[in-house]
Structure formats: structure tokens, C-alpha cells
């Protein structure tokens, strides 16, 4: 049953307003695939009411530990930021499809935007453990140096790593797409994997389409149920209609998404 209790073992404010939570949750640690998420209940009352989805940053089946990275943006994440070790969370998960690992040995590029780095750390970790390790280049973009949260964890799992900041406080100056486009030209990878804000994903998808590189994106959307029942987390599909981020995703082949109809939120 994709449901468990997770005990908060360790909470670290990695950069201001970003908390790395280490949870004791053997069930999820065992079953989790990179790109999947957990749907966390915060408190037992009505404020907040709904669960909140968080990507799995790392899962250690041996120790039973699961890590998530939480950026405080509102009520629920604000409450998490006050939680002490020992707090128990009721969670559903692992949920969603996750990224399918490549066959092995190929060239891949990972593109992370801000907090979107979380599931890509898990994905990169998995690639490293493959028998025929792919060659992993990664691009990590954020507003500024601070927002390059957990970049060392990410960089350590990749063969090449490029940071990009909008204000130039670290790495290149600009957007991830400014780096991605020449990178694809320089050396064409077999796959691109991306996670970040919708606007970034749309741009990455376009660049990959133009370059003819298959691209897999992990999307975010407001969720009701998290299990595919409410159709609340819909995003527009290029085949018409909508697909559900929680059950059909959060990872999609970028060509499945109708980026034109996608509202920027």
C-alpha cells in the first residue's frame, strides 16, 4: 500500500528558506523511483487542509531513509520549516511514474531549475549506479548563487556540471536555456531530462524539439488527491484534452504536453 508514516530524523536549512528533510520511511525508501513524489499531510487539522506534494531527492533502501527538499513558499511549507526532529508525517507514496532510466552508456543532459533539482539528484544518483553508466552533463539554473540549492549534491553525481544564474553571482550569467542550446549543438545527447518552473520546461522542450533530442520533463501542478481520482492536476496534452500530473506524470515526454495551452503560473 503506497502509504506510510515518515519520521523526521534530520532537518537542515541548506540555504535560507530551503530545508533538506531526512525522513525515516523504509516503505518509500524501498519502492521509490527517481522522479516520483510523496504526498505529505501537514498536521491533522484543516489548516492546511490538503496534502502537499514533494519530489523525492534521494531514497536509501538500505537505511530506510528518504530525503526531500522543501522550499518555504506558503502556509504548509512554512509549518514544515518549524518542525523538529521526531515529527511524524503521514504520507502517500511513492506516487507518479518517475523517469525511465536510459538503456545505459549514452550521453544525457540533465537540466534543473531552482528547487527542480531535487528529483534530478535522485535520477543522477541512479544513473551512476548503472552497469553501463551514461555520460551525464548537467545544467543547473537559478536566480542567484543562493538559489542553486544542493548544487554540490547534484554536481557530485554528474560528469560535467554547469551553473547558471540570472544575476551572474555564480557560474554563467543567464538562463539554463542560454547554456542548453549551445550544449546540444556542441555534443548532441541521446536524452534530455528536465525539472523546473513551467516557463523553463517549455523553453527546454522547444530547444530539444528543434534540436531533435528526446526530452523528458517533470511537471508541477496544484493537486487535490495525488492519486489520479480528482482530475485537479491536469495539464494540457498535445493530443488534445488533459493529462494528470499525479498519475500520468509527473514525468512526461515533452512532446506530450501542449505548451501553447499551458498557463504560466
Amino acid at each position, binding site marked *: *500500500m*503506497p*502509504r506510510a508514516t515518515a519520521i523526521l530524523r534530520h532537518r537542515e536549512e541548506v540555504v535560507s528558506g530551503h530545508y533538506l528533510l531526512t525522513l525515516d520511511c523504509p516503505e518509500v525508501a524501498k519502492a521509490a523511483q527517481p522522479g516520483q513524489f510523496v504526498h505529505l*499531510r501537514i498536521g491533522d487539522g*484543516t*489548516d*492546511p*487542509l*490538503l*496534502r502537499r506534494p514533494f519530489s523525492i531527492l534521494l531514497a536509501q533502501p538500505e537505511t530506510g531513509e528518504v530525503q526531500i527538499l522543501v522550499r518555504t513558499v506558503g502556509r504548509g511549507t512554512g509549518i514544515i520549516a518549524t518542525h523538529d526532529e521526531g515529527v511524524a508525517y503521514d504520507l*502517500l507514496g511513492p506516487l507518479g511514474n518517475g523517469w525511465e532510466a536510459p538503456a545505459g552508456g549514452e550521453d544525457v543532459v540533465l537540466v534543473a531549475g531552482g528547487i527542480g533539482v531535487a528529483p534530478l539528484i535522485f535520477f543522477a544518483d541512479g544513473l551512476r549506479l548503472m552497469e553501463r553508466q551514461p555520460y551525464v552533463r548537467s545544467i543547473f539554473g537559478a536566480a542567484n548563487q543562493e538559489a542553486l540549492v544542493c548544487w554540490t549534491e547534484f554536481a557530485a553525481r554528474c560528469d560535467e556540471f554547469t551553473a547558471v544564474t540570472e544575476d551572474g553571482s555564480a557560474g554563467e550569467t543567464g538562463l539554463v536555456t542560454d547554456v542548453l542550446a549551445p550544449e546540444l549543438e556542441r555534443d548532441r545527447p541521446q536524452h534530455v531530462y528536465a525539472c523546473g518552473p513551467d516557463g523553463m520546461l517549455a523553453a527546454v522542450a522547444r530547444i530539444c524539439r528543434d534540436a531533435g533530442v528526446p526530452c523528458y520533463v517533470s511537471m508541477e*501542478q*496544484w*493537486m*487535490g*488527491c*495525488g*492519486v*489520479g*481520482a*480528482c*482530475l*485537479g*492536476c*491536469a*495539464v*494540457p496534452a498535445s493530443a*488534445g*484534452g*488533459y493529462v494528470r500530473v499525479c*498519475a500520468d506524470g509527473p514525468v512526461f515526454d515533452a512532446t506530450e504536453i501542449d505548451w501553447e*495551452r*499551458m*498557463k504560466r*503560473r
Partner: protein
Amino acid sequence: MTVTCPDLSVEIAGLHLQNPVMSASGTFGYGVEYEPYLDLSQLGAIVTKAVTLEPREGNPQPRVRETPAGMLNAIGLQNPGAEVFIDDKLPALQRFGVPVIVNISGRSVEEFARLAEMLSIDGVDALEVNISCPNVQEEGMTFGVDCDMTGRLTEAVCAATDLPVIVKLSPNVTDITVIARAAEQAGADALSLINTLLGMSIDVERRLPHLGNVTGGLSGPAVRPVAVRMIYEVARAVDLPLIGMGGVMNAGDALELILAGATGVAVGTANFVEPAAMHQVIDGIAAYCRRHDVARIADLVGAVAADQA
């Protein structure tokens, strides 16, 4: 007398339910999504997501947004249409052995009647007529807030099917008892209430509505006092069994609706918060009956002593 094994069964519109607790339409998909989280065979009934004649794409995203003790949704009746529902979704619902109530929605009286006909098949135990979805900006809205339309629609559906017909009422009306009576007179076998309250919320940083559809339906604990009041009013206005819903999170909440006059209770938003919510409600009702020596849950329907308030 000590009640150790209370009788939780209820009769609604000729259906025998092992207990009063069922899913609220649209919050429980087609049942199977929640199979990993609870034993569906223990439910009183399963009420499906709205089915329409033709497939519907639904509304643009974002479609849901949390509000204080509640949520707004504007799904827009996304569903694969009646044919696909019958072929692909209905069979899977049979294996739980509990009554299946299909929620239907349409744009015209004819569409509703046609749907009722199509769905009058084995495996469907009753129809819930959604005359009140606030997210469909066509005629759908008009039905639920107008008593003539409600009457005409109910009559047409009743004529088109031999299944029990449950009319689902909108709370976005001045006097819900008038609509309830119109549905009763037109032949409804039961009523369910409340659907969502029409609401809206705004992202003040971007000065945009949170929902792609601008407005949406408010559900969850926030609306429970409105649901209790309307169930209380309707129970005194009609002779039909009622299925109550609106903000039920636990057994105490369900009992509020029952005491106000609901024979059955549907759980909606709570499923998102706690996938096993319906089990907890059923267990909690049983525990309450034992604690209060209530032999039959049916004895509590409408049992609030308002005259002694």
C-alpha cells in the same frame, strides 16, 4: 440494553446499503484509483465522477486551489463520455459488490434523458442527476437554480429509466426547499445535497484568478455548516430520503448530517486528505452507536431535537 453490533444499513430509493457512507461524485474517480488505500467492498455505495453523453475535455488549469478549510475546483466535468464509461470504467466497479450510483450531467433535458437511457443497464444501481455543477456555464447551472427546469429535467430522466433517480441539488439558491419539492413532485426517488458553493480566489501577487476557469466550486469542511442547514431544511420540506454531503471529514461530521436529516452520507474532499476517510467514518459511526446504545443508524436520521435548542 447495550448495543454491540449496531445495524448500520439504510434504504435509499429502493437500494439497500450496508452502511450510509459513500463517495461523493467527482472525488473518487471511478473507484479503482483508491483501491490501494481502502477496501471498497466495505462502502455503502460508490458514486462515480460525472458522466456526460460525449467526452469532455474539462477546464483549463489550474483546476484546484486550497482555501481556508476548503478547496475550490473547476474540473469542468472532464470525462471520457458515456460509451467509454460503460465499456471501460463500469466493469471494474462491479467487483466490489456494492451499489454503483452513476452521476450524470448534460447540457439539455434531452441529453440527460438520453444518458439515463444508455445507463439503464446491468451494473448501474441508481443515477444521480447532477443538475447543479457550478463549473458548466451553459444550461447546467440554470437547471439547479430554477424549479421549473428541475421539474422538467427530473421528469424526463424518470421517464427514461427504471433505475432509482437521485437528484443532486445546488446550494447556490435562495430557497433550496422549493427546488427540492419540485424534484420530489416530478418523481425523484431521493435527493442529494449539497453540491459545491460557487466561489473564487485571487492570486494578489499576479492579480489573476487562481483558477483557469476564474470561478469554481467550494467544498470541504468550510461549507459543512451550509450543508447541515440545507439538509435540515430539505428534510422538513420533502418526504424523500436524502444523501447528505459537504465537508464530512469524520464520523462526527457524518452524524451531524444524519441528525439533520440525511439517510446517506457522501464523503468528498476528505478522500484527498485521508484516503481511508470513508472507513474511518464507518467505524466511527459504529462506535458512536455502541456508545449511545443506538440499535439502528436509521433511527438517528433527522433526530436533532431542534425544538429543545
